């Protein structure tokens, strides 16, 4: 019964469209190595390495092969879920990533929930009271939220709520699998710090989308028909901003993943962010590539899900 639905055809088409994007993304991830100035093998071997050691590294990683051969080898391994080994610990990169992935995702999901739970009501309030003092206050606050360095907010939260008042743990994380309650407890402050920019973004986008809809022709018709403002807002206004909201969620997830990198540093959280920062500093390129690769695949996958959700929220998308 589903076989010929337009939605299913859209899924197929999206899959086909996404393949070149993934291939290009792997190309970019691998290409990062080519940005290293000078001789890569010498850089990897360290400052005081002997000629022999440099040559050994060059042979080990096949650095004398043409670029495309190296890329092909890397891609083939990546497809088989082999993201190579860390230069530092010699552990498989994928294992490290999988170990840290839940910690980072807990922050991102927590921040996303806070952004939506706080941002949506504020955005609706500002839009339905556009031009009022309430609107001015909400809009100014969201301007602050956009300009606020999230790691600074994190530091302020730690200094006050954790260190002075002792309400929350100041650093570290607990694995969700072993102690869900403790994990959430540790994730509260980082998520709030991460969500500040997200709330602001949700408010701004939702407000402008809702104002546009509420001033449209068909809403005027609904008023003429005698519908109450509340009914218009809940039945017609919000249904039409759902598409905007989905777009914002997609954008936010990518941005929160990036933000988590910095926030993890403040709270000394052993997630993917602190992993990539350390790896970049000590030039552990397989780890850098692995984390960047995981994150971009994650974002591409989420964007695809959101594309599909568009067809649920707005059936016109599927029919096109």
């Amino acid at each position, binding site marked *: 019964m589903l076989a010929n639905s337009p939605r299913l055809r859209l899924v197929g088409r999206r899959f086909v469209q996404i393949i070149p994007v993934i291939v290009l993304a792997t190309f970019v991830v691998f290409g990062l190595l080519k940005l290293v100035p000078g001789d890569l093998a010498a850089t990897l071997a360290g400052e005081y390495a002997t000629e022999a050691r440099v040559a050994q590294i060059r042979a080990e990683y096949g650095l004398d092969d043409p670029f495309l051969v190296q890329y092909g080898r890397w891609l083939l391994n990546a497809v088989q879920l082999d993201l190579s080994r860390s230069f530092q610990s010699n552990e498989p990169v994928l294992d490290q990533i999988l170990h840290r992935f839940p910690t980072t995702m807990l922050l991102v999901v927590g921040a996303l929930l806070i952004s939506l739970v706080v941002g949506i009501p504020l955005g609706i309030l500002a839009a339905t009271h556009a031009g009022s003092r309430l609107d001015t206050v909400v809009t100014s606050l969201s301007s602050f939220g956009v*300009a606020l360095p999230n790691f600074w907010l994190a*530091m302020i939260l730690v200094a006050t709520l954790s260190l002075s008042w002792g309400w929350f743990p100041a650093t570290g994380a607990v694995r969700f699998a072993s102690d869900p309650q403790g994990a959430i407890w540790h994730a509260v402050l980082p998520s709030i710090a991460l969500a500040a920019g997200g709330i602001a973004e949700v408010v701004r986008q939702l407000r402008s989308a809702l104002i546009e809809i509420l001033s449209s022709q068909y809403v005027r018709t609904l008023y003429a028909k005698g519908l109450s403002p509340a009914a218009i807002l809940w039945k017609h206004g919000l249904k039409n901003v759902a598409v905007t909201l989905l777009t914002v969620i997609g954008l936010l997830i990518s941005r929160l993943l990036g933000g988590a990198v910095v926030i993890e540093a403040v709270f000394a959280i052993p997630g993917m962010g602190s992993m990539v*920062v350390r790896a970049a500093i000590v030039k552990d390129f397989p780890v850098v590539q692995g984390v960047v690769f995981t994150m971009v695949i994650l974002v591409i996958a989420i964007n695809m899900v959101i594309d599909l959700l568009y067809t649920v929220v707005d059936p016109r998308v599927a029919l096109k």
Partner: protein
Amino acid sequence: MRRLRDWLGGNAAAVVSLFFLVGLFVLALAAPLIAPYPPTGQNLGNTLAEPSWAHWMGTDDLGRDVFSRLIHGAPSTLFASFLAVSVATVIGVPVGLLAGFMGGWVDDVISRVIDTLLSFPGIVLAIGVTGALGIGLTNAMIAVGIVFSPGLARLMRAQTLVVKQELYVDASRCFGASLSRILLKHVAPNAIQPVIVQVTLLLAVALLAEASLSFLGLGVQPPLPSWGGMLARAYNYMEIAPEQMYAPGIAILLTALAFNTLGEALRQALDPTRRRR
């Protein structure tokens, strides 16, 4: 003064922002003249001091004057923002212009590349690029610029698609104008306005990115002062001297806010639909 305000759409906040930024530029340029102490001058006998007449904002963990470091941090912060946005503009605008104007397979290829690059969480890609290029402010900001460029390219492409339909573009082609002349004289100037707004807003994002990267130790290297780096040091002494983190944080917040306010005012001033109302 009046004209300036009119030009910014009668937006008082934007005028204040503009003055704040101009003041910051002057401060940055005159940093060695204004700052009461050298930014790296240590005084281990007077560390983590409270604000006083001698040290308006106190001293840091090495007894260096916080106010002087803040002023000396301004040039590198502003340089970083402008470098990143310049890199993004130099890459993004021509690429977007080309994609939009040429259409066909050129557009297809460029658009796919833009889609791909936009899928990367910005700061993570910037960290990767910085790690590869080598740690330091210039490399970090080139990385941030590269990360910003696809967004600008997409905007420029969309604008070019609209402008190239205009009659005057056809007219100049009929007069035998060369491709480069059409692009530079007719398409680019008419498509650039939203890009200018975006560039102003990007300055704030670049500023926050610089602060984040310096905080993580990937940007400005100590002992050189930077606002993000000052926060990184303040972080280490958060338990005994939490007030260390206020001055650099507020400086970042206000500067980013000023860039944003200015960008939003420009958007309103340049928006033809709003002007009509």
